[in-house]
């Protein structure tokens, strides 16, 4: 099931925020449920319409860009990198980024180790830092196969890991969330953090790919 109605990011007006491009499609059972639950919780005072609106805006404000800024800073500042590897949430605060209350840990790619993140039981993801996960991260194929044949899954993303490098799979089953600190690409000596951050993709923070090459 896919939804491609992203052109409409309008805000809610009143209790039934119908939107022109969506109205053309039949309402599904679960869309009606979502609408009903939201309205009833507002009417019962569990939360206010303003709180819901603010939360929707907060969700929209999260993106991989926040993680990319942290990675770029870590590439330029060893002391920051050490703090990032200890506690992502605290390191985020230094850059004015709110990474939420769920503890996030970073795992570092080195010449000897390549890390990749999966959640086999669910689809846990550092969403409070880098936003909602892509569909494939939540798919049966990714969740099933990444622990059993990680190198093949990586190859499907175009990522070949040399035989002498350790592939380290992290299954985030419990209370912590994980992100990958990728290695700084060669050929970026002297680059500033903004330019470096442009090389850091969401997928390289999940570990299925490497940062963009400086020439690309």
């Amino acid at each position: 099931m896919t939804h491609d109605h992203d052109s409409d990011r309008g805000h809610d007006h009143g209790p039934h925020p119908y939107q022109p491009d969506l109205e053309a499609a039949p309402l599904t059972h679960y869309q009606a449920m979502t609408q009903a639950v939201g309205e009833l919780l507002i009417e019962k005072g569990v939360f206010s319409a303003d709180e819901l609106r603010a939360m929707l805006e907060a969700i929209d404000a999260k993106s991989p860009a926040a993680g990319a800024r942290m990675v770029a800073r870590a590439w330029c500042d060893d002391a920051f990198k050490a703090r990032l590897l200890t506690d992502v949430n605290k390191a985020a605060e230094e850059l004015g980024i709110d990474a939420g209350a769920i503890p996030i840990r970073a795992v570092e790619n080195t010449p000897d180790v390549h890390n990749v993140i999966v959640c086999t039981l669910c689809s846990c993801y550092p969403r409070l830092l880098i936003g909602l996960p892509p569909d494939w991260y939540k798919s049966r194929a990714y969740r099933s196969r990444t622990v059993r044949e990680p190198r093949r899954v990586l190859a499907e993303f175009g990522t070949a890991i040399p035989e002498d490098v350790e592939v380290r799979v992290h299954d985030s089953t419990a209370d912590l969330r994980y992100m990958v600190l990728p290695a700084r690409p060669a050929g970026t000596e002297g680059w500033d953090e903004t330019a470096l951050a442009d090389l850091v993709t969401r997928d390289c923070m999940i570990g299925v790919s490497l940062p963009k090459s400086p020439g690309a």
Partner: protein
Amino acid sequence: MTARFSVGDPVRVRAAFPPGHVRTPFFVRGKAGRVTQVLGPYRNPEELAYGRSGEPALPLYRVVFETAELWDGYQGAPQDTTLVDIYENWLEGA
């Protein structure tokens, strides 16, 4: 609750198959690994999932497994590893 295991300790995941909400993936049950990190006390998700307090909190560990020992005929490299966060009630000394 004091953590029973320390970094470096060999451990084995209990081969248990209860009904209900658990956070120990099927593929590591019964397998031997090693503690790489003691993550601290976390409320028990097997209780929290049913609306209870989850107290007392349980020590949570990062356990590393040799990936080749998790799967018959693993086709990756021998040095590949898999890390899973596991609550203390699922671990025994090995």
